């Protein structure tokens, strides 16, 4: 009974249902081949890594009551920068240089995050507009970096972050999970999570409680930028090229959706990283399922709409009460009014 009431129960059920569907449609759900995991499930997990990373940063931003639309553009820039530099390497397979280049790309993404954070926290621009600026201009910058063309690289260490395996698990997924664990530690083992939720709950009250709201706000945008940059690297490593035009296109919407599915409210305050993880994997699983069951492309969106509607209703306590709970004579007016 208490499990059913849990916020994440229904998203989890839908996720499991989607996985079960894939179990039947797929040749292999999960097997070991050449010493690593192979099959739909690893594919889904690997494929969800960029979205997971972006959604993770988005969760923190949303917890402070903000939003970050620029993640897609940051992904594009980070991938473009990395590929441009790797392409010019004498030996593209030199692990050290590739790692250095990845650090440079992530550094650039952190700076972009800082730019967003500054606009929001210091200049005081509404987050949606502040990050819209970078969303629009950032992709332009990425296109400029790549001259509008796709830049190919032949670097196996670089490709490994997306397609390699470590201890037979896809590295991309490991990176995403490492980021998740790190974020959880960072927010829950320190006081950061509490301060974030406080700033998201009420900036005024937080300020009067002595919280440096501005610093925290800047920080979450920086983190979001960095994670988006990492996601951009994985995205581009996956196709061994920088595609500045489509990298991260519209990913902000999916990321926000993942966060909301995970039970973090857009107005800020309480956030759930576990929820975001489920949300992101769910979205990836949904995308795979659509292809796997052969939904014709003209009906794809309708199919997704049905799932999202189901999800959004399952998120609603009121809906669950009305449908599954005891039937009441009249609708409950549930105003959350403090005494």
């Amino acid at each position, binding site marked *: 009974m208490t499990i059913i009431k849990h916020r994440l129960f229904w998203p989890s059920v839908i996720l499991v249902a989607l996985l079960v569907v894939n179990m039947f449609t797929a040749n292999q759900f999960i097997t070991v081949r050449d010493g690593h995991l192979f099959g739909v499930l690893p594919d889904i997990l690997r494929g969800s890594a960029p979205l997971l990373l972006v959604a993770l940063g988005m969760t923190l931003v949303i917890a402070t009551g903000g939003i970050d639309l620029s993640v897609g553009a940051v992904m594009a820039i980070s991938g473009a920068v990395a590929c441009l530099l790797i392409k010019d390497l004498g030996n593209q397979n030199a692990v050290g240089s590739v790692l250095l280049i990845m650090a440079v790309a992530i550094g650039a993404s952190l700076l972009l995050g800082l730019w967003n954070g500054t606009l929001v926290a210091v200049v005081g621009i509404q987050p949606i507009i502040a990050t819209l600026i970078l969303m629009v201009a950032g992709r332009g910058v990425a296109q400029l970096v790549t001259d509008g063309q796709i830049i190919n690289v032949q670097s196996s260490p670089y490709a490994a972050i997306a397609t390699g395996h470590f201890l037979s698990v896809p590295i991309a997924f490991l990176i995403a999970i490492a980021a998740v664990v790190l974020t959880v530690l960072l927010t829950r*083992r*320190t*006081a*950061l999570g*509490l*301060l974030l*939720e*406080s700033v998201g*709950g*009420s900036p*005024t*009250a*937080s*300020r*009067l*409680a*002595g*919280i*440096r709201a501005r610093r*925290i706000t800047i920080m979450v945008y920086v983190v979001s930028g960095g994670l988006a940059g990492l996601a951009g690297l994985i995205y581009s490593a996956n196709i061994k090229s920088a595609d500045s035009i489509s990298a991260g296109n519209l990913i902000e919407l999916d990321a926000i959706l993942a966060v909301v599915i995970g039970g973090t409210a857009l107005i800020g*305050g*309480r956030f759930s990283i576990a929820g975001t993880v489920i949300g992101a994997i769910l979205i990836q699983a949904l995308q795979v399922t659509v292809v796997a069951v052969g939904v014709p492309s003209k009906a794809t969106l309708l199919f997704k709409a049905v799932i999202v509607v189901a999800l959004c209703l399952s998120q609603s306590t009121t809906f669950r009460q009305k449908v599954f709970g005891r039937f*009441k004579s*009249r*609708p*409950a*007016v549930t*105003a*959350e*009014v*403090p*005494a």
Partner: protein
Amino acid sequence: MGEPSPVLEMTGIRKVFPGVVALDGVDFRLLPGEIHALMGENGAGKSTLIKVLTGVYDIDGGQITLGGEQVDFTGPLQSQKAGVSTVYQEVNLCTNLTVAENIFIGREPRKFGRIQWGLMRKRAAELLARLDLNIDVSATLDTYSLAIQQMVAIARAVDVSARVLILDEPTSSLDASEVAQLFTIMRRLKDDGVAILFVSHFLDQVYEISDRLTVLRNGQLIGEYKTADLPQVQLVEKMIGKELAVLEDLEDKSQRIRAKTADAAPILAATGLGRTGAISPFDLTIHQGEVVGLAGLLGSGRTELARLLFGADRADSGSLQIDGKDVTLRSPQAAMKRGIAFSSENRRTEGILGELSVRENIILALQASRGWTRPIPRRKQDEIVDKYIKALQIRPADPEREVRNLSGGNQQKVLLARWLITEPRLLIIDEPTRGIDVGAKAEIQKLVAELSDGGMAVLFVSAELEEVLRLSHKIEVLRDRRLVEELENTEGVDADRIMQTIASGATQ
């Protein structure tokens, strides 16, 4: 008995929240033309009863009849239509709208469907004038202090010609003259046959205005009494279930002599500190172990003064010395670093974080001052929180409950706890006893006295003059956003003397 039949009758009301039975088999009735006080400690269930009545909450059991007919309101809209006009406990208005709109929204004067702004403003101004309030009704509500907002809420409720008027702690931040105005209006309505339900933690007010009272304790009905038949002491006993004895030792002023402060260097000294439009430049010194009270009428600038000392607003003139060193407070953190704490009068928007738990709310300020990298270990948190939940009798004593589900008084205690655990050297408390029940209020006063004996300086702001007089070593009197006089709180200083100071200032 020749009692008229009740306009409102509630029987066997039961309301359960997850983990709490807020009301259990409560009966309540309201006669036409009476003022009926609903009494009980913080968290007794008064506000819940009112919300159940007006349809904000569903009931889990029992019946409500209004004017002889059984009703089942689905929301405030319905109850309002049925003639029940309500002022809920915390000011529930829309601060982004103008004063006039707040008063008239939902029933604006219209012509051909078009709102008549001029007429609306005129009527709003007239209405407020009857409450002795001359403010610009076309300014948005958020430019006014909480007390003004409360008056506006009252004006709104009173203006609706209703059968039943419900006032949940309307006087919590009003000063004496506003209360008097309100009572005049209540009496007039009562004479018109309106039934009034009144909640207050001020026993004097209850005895002054009410005809009968109903006492709740822990969600249960204790009884219904004629006010005249029930002496104060007995009422308190019924409310808290035991005798109240804490206040006595405070009464004796002679004990409140500043032992250590006389020669101590001042903690804080303001010279010509001020902020344009908020408060004129003032001088103020606060010593260790000293309780400084701020007295003044609504909008006299007490809150503004306090905010300057905490860095919540930035001063634009004068200078501030802390421990003899010149400082500029640019932010609350700067003040906190120097041992200053400030609990805002506006607990709902500037104090509590509703979604967070009691524990998180309590440790917030301490945590903020330590920085995010040094979390307070969970065990230590639990220890501190437990201690203060006990000390301040926060109920329910569950540290993991969301604060927004606590009753108003208990939220106030949580805020107080938040600042006490930072062990400040100067504690600024703006209306700390607002909405707090008699027992807890006495506890808080005792606490303030103890803290000051222990060397903490306290800047105490309260609309209740008695309280200020009882606790303060010296009293700063404000008027029209100006500090007009400083009074040593010696024998002979009493409420009248202070009112005189304010009034004489007014004639200048």
